[in-house]
């Protein structure tokens, strides 16, 4: 089966054409770097994405702390992880890199803070 993929690894957005049978790649061209080939392999087998979103944060200089998964997770988990972020509450201060949920949904990725939120005195 022939298919065209647009790589999302970097802004080059390489268009990579692949000829594959089930999960086996027979022919691949168009990637400007090795990461592109890796991306396509995953897209065929198990597409991976970084999740980014936000979590409510009280007593901080912002109402929300932004979060991400520190590793790409299977695409099919994106909505589930988003749902989870809606249920969480944090208390300021929080720091970049702070782990909120280790191994979220049993995956090999932690949900971590991506924004420093300062505590405000009321």
């Amino acid at each position, binding site marked *: 089966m022939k298919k065209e993929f647009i790589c999302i690894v970097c802004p080059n957005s390489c268009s990579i054409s692949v000829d594959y049978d089930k999960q086996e790649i027979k022919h691949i061209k168009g990637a400007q770097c090795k990461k592109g080939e890796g991306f396509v392999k995953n897209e065929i087998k198990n597409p991976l994405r970084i999740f980014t979103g936000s979590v409510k944060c009280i007593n901080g200089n912002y109402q929300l702390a932004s979060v991400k998964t520190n590793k790409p997770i299977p695409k099919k988990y994106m909505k589930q992880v988003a749902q989870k972020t809606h249920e969480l509450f944090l208390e300021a201060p929080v720091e*970049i890199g702070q782990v909120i949920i280790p191994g979220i949904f049993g995956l090999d990725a932690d949900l971590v803070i991506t924004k420093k939120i300062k505590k405000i005195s009321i």
Partner: protein
Amino acid sequence: MIKKDVIVIGGGAAGLAAAVACREKGIEDILIIERESDLGGILKQCIHDGFGLIKFQHSYTGPEYAQKYIDQVEERHIEYLLDSMVIDITNKKIITVVNKKGLKKYQAKSIILAMGCRERTRGAIGIPGTRPAGIYTAGVAQNLINLHNYMIGKEIVILGSGDIGLIMARRLMLEGANVKMVLELLPYGSGLPRNFNQCLFDYDIPLYLNHAVIDIKGNKRVEAITMAKVDRQGEVVLSSCKEVPCDTLLLSVGLIPENELSKMAGIELDPLTGGPMVDEYGQTTVSGIFACGNVLQVHDIVDNVSLEAEHIASGVEKYISSLLKLKNYISIEIGEGLRYVLPQRVQYLADDTTFSFRVKKPDNKKQIIFKNNNRIIKKRSFIRVNPAEMIRIKLTSSELSDIKHLKVELT
């Protein structure tokens, strides 16, 4: 009047990188003036990842990227003012600032303009119809959702396929809204191809090219929009009109460099970029006033903003040390296939010059050629070109010596 060596107007990506780079060059007396309550600019609300791949070989989110520079500003004890608005700049480099404490005037040896850009609105593109609540620009929606915990709607139509619109399509889907479609007037998408993939196709959001919104309905709140096909001449195909029920219309229809202050200082603007006309150091037509980042030209990648800001710092440093010596004035001509070219002039030839530009339309197997009369000075081949992606090419001062004119073209 308070004296400063360098005043940076704007504490976003460009301003922070410029201030840090000026300090690296040995300039001590620097002040950053920021109108919001925190440094970081637009990066604060860009919570998605993909920032920093060129500079740091790592994919950061916007707030993480900004924090890297904020930390450097703090570590180097670079002075900054928050919640402070510059209301005037003169060509003598006098800056008037207001904040809660009152009004202050500063005299700078050099000024770096880093005010960024703002979004085109409904008014700018003139969509007919009623004026209900529920019409947002993509960046405002991003600010409300990501910083203020305020959801903007449930059934959403996006007009324009700029990157912020695409990023918001995904964000809205994950936040529980239904993004019904993205409409784009042009025959091709305006954002980076990877964003169409990971933001629209991943969530089965349809993209309609050659389409416009020709009517908005609703009294208190948006109730529906009318979409229509647009032909090659730009005329609406009336038979294609279709009403789409929705409660929110998001606009991602372009950005405009924010140059009101530049105009006050008498700086000449380029109608093609909306930003100041500059030399190879980003120096405007008022000597000692420099510009970088989105106030100069709208960027698609923050790394290019940082690189541009770092580069102008060497011009600022030379300017305040009176080392900028006119050597050879080269005028730059925009050739076939390009929308604009920066800088508009090269005159010092002390360092390498990075040219940045955008093509007019997407294409495959193209070359960018720099030539003086008929002599080719530099040539670069591209597998494909896209107006969404700024191209940057460096020329050395020896490649540019002895010429008076340089033409950049796409063939």
